[in-house]
């Protein structure tokens, strides 16, 4: 039996272009509960937009039973028969129609509601989106943010089973983007409608998502809550893609020496804490240590990794310190003032217990 009763399920979705030569989506599986906000996150070309377009019916998947909504197989249904509302990156508003007619377009086409009921829904959506004053304008008279609000309005009045948003904020400036993403989340909460939100911006994904699906090369790498994506990345790609400033990576050898498990790299040799050591007890092997910049400390006492401060960057309440340790650049995130200056000699302490450990293929070892 496929499909949960009320959500959206993507099952083994495969989508190729160019007669099978270009694989956009490969074995994509997603399970989005009713009322949930799922973010599809990944770099450009990872297949996230293609996945969304397959759900909407704008692309035709290779397999016949890939898209399920409310327990119904929608894979081969026309977009108009899916009761899903799509919001486009560049708004795709109809330039020849007023904002009012743009918003009511879907209801006008459906033809089930009376004129008065349609007007009521348009007014209600416009109020929610704070665009009541724009209803008689044409799309060319709108700013980017206003256009995107109208695009949302066109979706909201449909009262769809889900909203599908394809990088809706990518074209907006930074301040507006932050404001709009909060607003979108509030609206989604208020309407309690399932939403799939595509973005390449990891910060946007972390702030807005109930769940995040990270994609790369047409495959889903990990689906989890934002917290778990951040704290327990399932592979090196997820670990590097999520988090800003990006994670530090160290290629190391794991060595059993004198009853201790040591992590040996060209710039350091460190003993693993006992609890971690037990988990790696297996054998000597190569691995990759990933450590977020906030888990590197600038130490005072002797020991630790020697380095020279190359640069400090103020990031508001925190400061990023770039340290050159024997040719390896290490990013350190410090709360408040760093207390060091460019050119200072420092000693770095790695909080190994907070590190991520991957095999040389990038798979998590924990």
């Amino acid at each position, binding site marked *: 039996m496929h499909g949960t009763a009320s959500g959206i399920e993507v099952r083994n979705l495969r989508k190729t272009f160019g007669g099978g030569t270009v694989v956009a989506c490969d074995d994509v599986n997603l399970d989005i509960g009713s009322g949930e906000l799922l973010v599809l996150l990944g770099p450009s070309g990872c297949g996230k937009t293609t996945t969304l377009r397959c759900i909407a019916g*704008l692309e035709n998947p290779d397999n016949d039973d890939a898209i399920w909504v409310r327990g119904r197989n929608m894979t081969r249904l026309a*977009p*108009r028969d899916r009761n899903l509302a*799509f919001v486009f990156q*560049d708004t*795709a*508003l109809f330039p*020849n129609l007023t904002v009012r007619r743009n918003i009511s377009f*879907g209801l006008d*086409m459906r033809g089930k509601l009376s004129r008065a009921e349609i007007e009521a829904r348009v007014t209600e959506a416009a109020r929610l989106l704070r665009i009541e004053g724009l209803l008689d304008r044409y799309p060319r008279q709108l700013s980017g943010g206003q256009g995107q609000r109208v695009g949302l309005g066109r979706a909201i009045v449909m009262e769809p089973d889900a909203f599908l948003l394809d990088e809706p904020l990518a074209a907006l400036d930074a301040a507006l983007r932050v404001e709009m993403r909060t607003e979108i989340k509030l609206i989604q909460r208020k309407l309690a409608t399932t939403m799939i939100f595509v973005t390449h911006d990891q910060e946007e994904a972390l702030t807005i998502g109930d769940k995040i699906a990270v994609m790369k090369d047409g495959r889903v790498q990990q689906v989890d809550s934002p917290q778990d994506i951040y704290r327990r990345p399932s592979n090196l790609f997820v670990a590097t893609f999520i988090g800003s400033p990006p994670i530090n990576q160290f290629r190391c050898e794991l060595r059993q020496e004198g009853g201790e498990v040591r992590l040996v790299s060209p710039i350091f040799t460190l003993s693993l804490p006992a609890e971690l050591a037990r988990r790696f007890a297996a054998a000597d092997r190569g691995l990759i240590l990933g450590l977020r910049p906030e888990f590197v400390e600038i130490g005072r006492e002797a020991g630790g990794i020697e380095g020279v401060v190359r640069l400090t960057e103020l990031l508001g309440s925190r400061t990023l310190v770039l340290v050159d340790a024997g040719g390896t650049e290490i990013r350190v995130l410090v709360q408040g003032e760093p207390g060091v200056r460019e050119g200072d000699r420092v000693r770095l302490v790695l909080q190994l217990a907070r590190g991520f450990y991957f095999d040389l293929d990038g798979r998590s070892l924990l």
Partner: protein
Amino acid sequence: MTDDRSSPGQKALGHGGLALVLALVLIPYVYVIVTAFKPAEEIYDATWLPQRISFDAWIEVFEVNRFHLYLWNSLVAGAGSAALAILIAVPGAYIFARKEFRFREPFFYMIVGTLIFPFILLIVPITITWIRIGLFDTFIGLWLAFQIFAVPYSMWILRGYFAGLPKNLEEAAMVYGCTQFQAFYRVMLPLAKPVIVSVLFLAFLQGWSDFLFSNMLTTGDGPRTASVAIYASTAGGERVDWQVLMVMTLLTGVPPVVLYMLAQKHLAKTFAAT
């Protein structure tokens, strides 16, 4: 004009040059108008203003030549040809702009390439064919013959325009309740209005002013068009009543100018974009 740094002499020279070009263009037209109002006896006087303004030629054109009938024929020939061209070219151009299929580009350039073909070579075979299948001396025969040019250049212009329209407008229409066909005619077609008006204008103009096909494919008993009637009125150049000829020329030349002024806004949009 504010940053014009040329000296008064240069300016005078420039304006003088422009005046000369303007005169070269306008003088023949002015002379046509003047001649149309000259009495017969003054035709060969090389004067700009007639001694007496005469409407004799105008009366003759309508009462003897019954020229309004030929103007009507031209109108039907041009309008019908334009309508047919749009009916064929709009769906065709849309498919060539939007659908992926094998040999799309070669097919398209074969269609557009027919514009290069010396169409004069087609006149005799078409005339013979039209006589055989009963299209000779009919409007339908004229309309179909005009499509030889009207369809390729209409498709050329329209395809460029459709290809330039954002694809996601149709996708938005399809998500919000349209079938592909509805998306086309509710969203794409209204957006293509300037181009469709332009194509209609050009196809009309071509049908209205065509001589070669109209002359070969019609007789005095059938839908003979104005341009052919003008030629016929001179008995093939044997007998020329200049004042009558000029009235007919004026009557044939003015409608396209008026139409152009009406369509000008759309034409500017179309050809500024392509």
